[in-house]
């Protein structure tokens, strides 16, 4: 596994030398600010917490995270470096995990750069900083799950656009799984057990449980398992589609 840090380091450097990274960070921070202050009525709520920020964050991630993930494998396939990487002594799993960790670290950096919001609420009042920390952890886990979907699906194609769109669709499915609209639609004709199971896959309900300030083992395990499963699926996709 000691080839993993080399892959991680290369991928992280690859983000930082391309404009994608800076475009992502600027757009992420601008939208996060806009959602929090305009849509979320940060000031007029009169409460010193970051609830407006964290409630819009999943949708922001849904739009932006697939853009971070799409190049991870699709670009290797398109440029032919896949053949180079997979014939180096790097296990497929290690390569997959290294790439994922690099992208995740990058998103963690973007998330950390929202710290002025945290400073603001602490200046304005006395928020529950433990709850805020839990919500940040939840956000990072949610972003990780979306990213794992994107990393796995990126392994299936040589087109970044295809990887992006597939990830948007699957991610949307996960986000909406627990939504009243979707549940209302399926509850009529699906057996109750299946509808409940579907609701159990909801990113939003697991995320909101953590964002309320409760870092529950079940919710954490759900995200970790989702990440592991999608990265595993990505390794399988790599092996299945290896036609050069």
């Amino acid at each position: 596994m000691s080839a993993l840090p080399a892959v991680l380091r290369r991928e992280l450097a690859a983000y930082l030398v391309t404009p994608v990274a800076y475009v992502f960070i600027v757009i992420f921070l601008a939208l996060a600010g806009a959602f929090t202050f305009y849509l979320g009525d940060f000031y007029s709520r009169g409460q010193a917490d970051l609830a407006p920020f964290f409630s819009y964050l999943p949708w922001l991630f849904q739009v932006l995270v697939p853009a971070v993930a799409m190049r991870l494998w699709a670009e290797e396939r398109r440029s032919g470096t896949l053949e180079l990487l997979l014939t180096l002594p790097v296990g497929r799993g290690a390569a997959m995990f290294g790439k994922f960790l690099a992208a995740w670290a990058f998103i963690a950096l973007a998330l950390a750069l929202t710290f002025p919001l945290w400073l603001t609420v602490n200046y304005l009042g006395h928020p529950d900083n433990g709850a805020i920390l839990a919500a940040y952890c939840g956000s990072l886990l949610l972003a990780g799950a979306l990213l794992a979907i994107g990393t796995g699906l990126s392994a299936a194609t040589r087109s970044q656009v295809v990887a992006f769109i597939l990830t948007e669709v699957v991610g949307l499915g996960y986000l909406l799984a627990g939504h009243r609209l979707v549940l209302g639609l399926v509850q009529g004709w699906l057996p109750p057990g299946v509808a409940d199971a579907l609701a159990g896959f909801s990113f939003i309900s697991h995320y909101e449980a953590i964002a309320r300030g409760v870092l529950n083992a079940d919710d954490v395990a759900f995200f970790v398992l989702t990440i592991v499963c999608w990265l595993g699926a990505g390794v399988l996709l790599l092996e299945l589609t290896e036609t050069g």
Partner: protein
Amino acid sequence: MIEAENLSRRYGGMLAVDALNLCVRAGEVVGLLGPNGAGKTTSLRMLAGFLAPSGGRARIGGHDVERQPHAARCALGYLPEGAPSYGEMSVLGFLLFVARVRRLSGERRRSRLDAVIQQLELDDVLALPIETLSKGYRRRVGLAQAILHDPPALILDEPTDGLDPNQKRAARALIRGLARDRAILISTHLLEEVPTVCSRVAVIARGRLLADATPAELEQRSRYHGAVSFSARGAGPARAAISLLPGVDTVEVDPLNGRVTVFPKPGRPILAEVQGILAAQRVEVSEFALERGRLDDVFRSLTADPAEAA
């Protein structure tokens, strides 16, 4: 060191590589020669562990590529077709990445990096992003990457493609130098590369191995082997006399430049007899040569599609 045993690969219904058997020992440079689409790259990809074979086995340094992928990969340096590399990285950054993945560290990493940078003359471009380099430089970066860990086995897919004649010569000298103590398998469609680099040639077409011989043995299979050719003015009567010699099979005249080529019957030396007739008839010869055999001729007859030839 590099072994293929009944190695096969199917794409859908098409058999791209059909039970290939090949062994490259340390000290040898084997050239995999074949027309485009013959299955060269597919064979190399299976040996390098990028493509899973549909049947048969590949071994590098005694390690089964599928069952002991890590050990096989550590023993191998591989230049994939087109010499892919990460365009946004600098040459040095890319080589450092490969060194890290290959677990070279400390003094050994420094000395190996210095060695390949010097061998492939990459000093001037170390800090440049690879995507800004010429095709020749990119190919050399790919070669540097392949030999960085000083592997006992090397597989190079068209290592001199895109190099100019001087760089080609340098790359061939490098490959010959590397061959002293390791097994090297290269693919090429350049016939000129064969006698200058390879100690053995494996000719494949339509996925099948058609010949496995030294370049000299292949030349002997040419109908030009032992033939005598000359250019001369007014050689008509001499030509008639030559065609009557017992060892001579046919006499051909090139319609463009009038050069006469005398083909021997198999295994019959005719040089002295032809010279004798030319001297006796006092023919004014401007050029005279004994042919060793022509690889392009052998290559054509070996790889010609039987359906097309019929």
